[in-house]
């Protein structure tokens, strides 16, 4: 049974809940190596995005995701706004006109999101950014689907890979963003952007698993 736009909306509401619950945690991570506003900014952005959803709830997945992306760009600020905004907008471009999402559609959307983030932020794997969580997640999702996993199982593996990628940022030396100015002092801290990326992917996997459980 393919995912629906209702499932997508459930994911977006769950993402906003998870970001709100982790607002202080993300801000604390950012205080160590950035400017102590990542949780505050993301929470402001997702709250604003939720307010924009009701008029587009019966629209296609592309319209819903683009609405979220545009809202994040104009409300998050910092580097997170353009990066997450671009990710959602790119994913939305891939899913334009679609009301039902096959597993390959979900993969294509996340691949597009990753490409958007890399294009906008010019970060490479290992630079201690959200790319370090998103890249392994997309790879795990692709691999799991190729091996015949269900969408829920594949998303679970993607979330697990993102979690590992997030933890792997701890010993990294930051090469992008404000943390890069700390040089060696950035080592030993978990990247806040990789952390919020993991939390969002965790939310998607949880929603998918709950749907599978009901089916």
């Amino acid at each position: 049974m393919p995912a629906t736009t209702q499932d997508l909306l459930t994911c977006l509401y769950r993402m906003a809940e998870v970001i709100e619950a982790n607002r202080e945690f993300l801000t604390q991570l950012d205080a160590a190596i950035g400017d102590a506003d990542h949780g505050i900014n993301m929470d402001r952005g997702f709250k604003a995005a939720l307010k924009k959803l009701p008029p587009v709830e019966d629209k296609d997945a592309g319209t819903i995701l683009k609405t979220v992306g545009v809202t994040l760009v104009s409300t998050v600020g910092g580097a997170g706004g353009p990066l997450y905004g671009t990710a959602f907008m790119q994913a939305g471009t891939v899913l334009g006109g679609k009301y039902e999402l096959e597993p390959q559609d979900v993969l294509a959307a996340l691949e597009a999101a990753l490409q958007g983030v890399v294009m906008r932020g010019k970060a490479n794997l290992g630079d201690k950014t959200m790319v370090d969580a998103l890249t392994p997640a997309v790879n795990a999702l692709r691999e799991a689907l190729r091996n015949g996993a269900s969408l829920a199982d594949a998303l679970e593996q993607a979330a697990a890979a993102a979690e590992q990628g997030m933890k792997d940022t701890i010993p990294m030396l930051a090469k992008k963003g404000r943390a890069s100015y700390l040089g060696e002092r950035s080592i030993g801290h978990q990247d806040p952007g990789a952390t919020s990326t993991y939390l969002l992917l965790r939310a998607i996997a949880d929603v998918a698993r709950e749907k599978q459980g009901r089916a």
Partner: protein
Amino acid sequence: MKKLINRPEDVVKEELEGIALAYPDLVKVHFNPNFIYRADAPIKGKVAVISGGGSGHEPMHGGFVGMGMLDAACPGEVFTSPTPDQMLEAAKTVYGGAGVLFIVKNYTGDVMNFEMAADMARMEGLRVLNILIDDDVAVKDSLYTAGRRGVGTTVLAEKICGAAAERGYDLKRVADICRRVNLNGRSMGMALTPCTVPMAGKPTFELGEDEMEVGIGIHGEPGRERMKIKTADEITEMLALSIIEDPEYRRTVREFDEEKGEWVDVELVSEPFRPGDRVLAFVNSMGGTPDIELPIIYRKLHEICEKKGLKIVRRLIGRYITSLEMQGCSITLLRMDDELIDLWDAPVKTPGLRWGV
């Protein structure tokens, strides 16, 4: 936290409301999205010069909106970059038909938000070029960091580009002037105290009573080195020599190529200062350092420049690019030529900088 504010979340909004009421002859303020713009905009046939960044650096940028300087400034939350919808709306509001120059400080968030804004404005048929300011010598390399930060030279670039636009230079020439100012300007700053972002409620870092932080940026971020506090002369020497003896600096930046219609990587080189150079010397308070201390810094800077064979031909001394209430200072030296001197001297009439009118 002790601040003259009402609610932390209202600081930027109420600041803008106050500016609108205080300088009605010079500027207007647009809310949602937020930007400050020239009261007489748009000016037909003139290139519009727009900048912006996080709030907390006042008078930069909003205090520099007016004749001979910026057409509009887009303030973000405190120390958080503004969002593309602000720059897009500002650009459309002040567009005089001759294009827009975005002057962007090199911070990851600012760069991305201004790039997105430029892409969106071009989709609506506006001509836009972005030029980065990356003049902070405290950042040594560009390979393993996001590159040098944009600090003191930004103020000088806004003044000089504003004069060039006022004089009728076309978009490409104003952009070339901006790049030239950036390549010839170098800065370094230091802090005696940290600062407190209103929403955070506590200082951005801790400094002991007898400590100082050298090589800070302008967001209350920790600097290059923490050390025991020294005398004004010793501090001035440390900052000035870091600037004057800074070697050639190469980096790759992204600029928009109008002929190709796409963003391209451009390699830029800043040449080191050499004896005989004419310079503008800019001594800046980080916000909390009082005016009485700035001439003490300038006094020593003047002596060092003379010793190094640099001829100071223009000066700017005061509080122009700040980190809230932080005590500390920054020094900027900008290599001048006849055209830059002429543009620097041109009339300017803004809340934060005013002469010749």
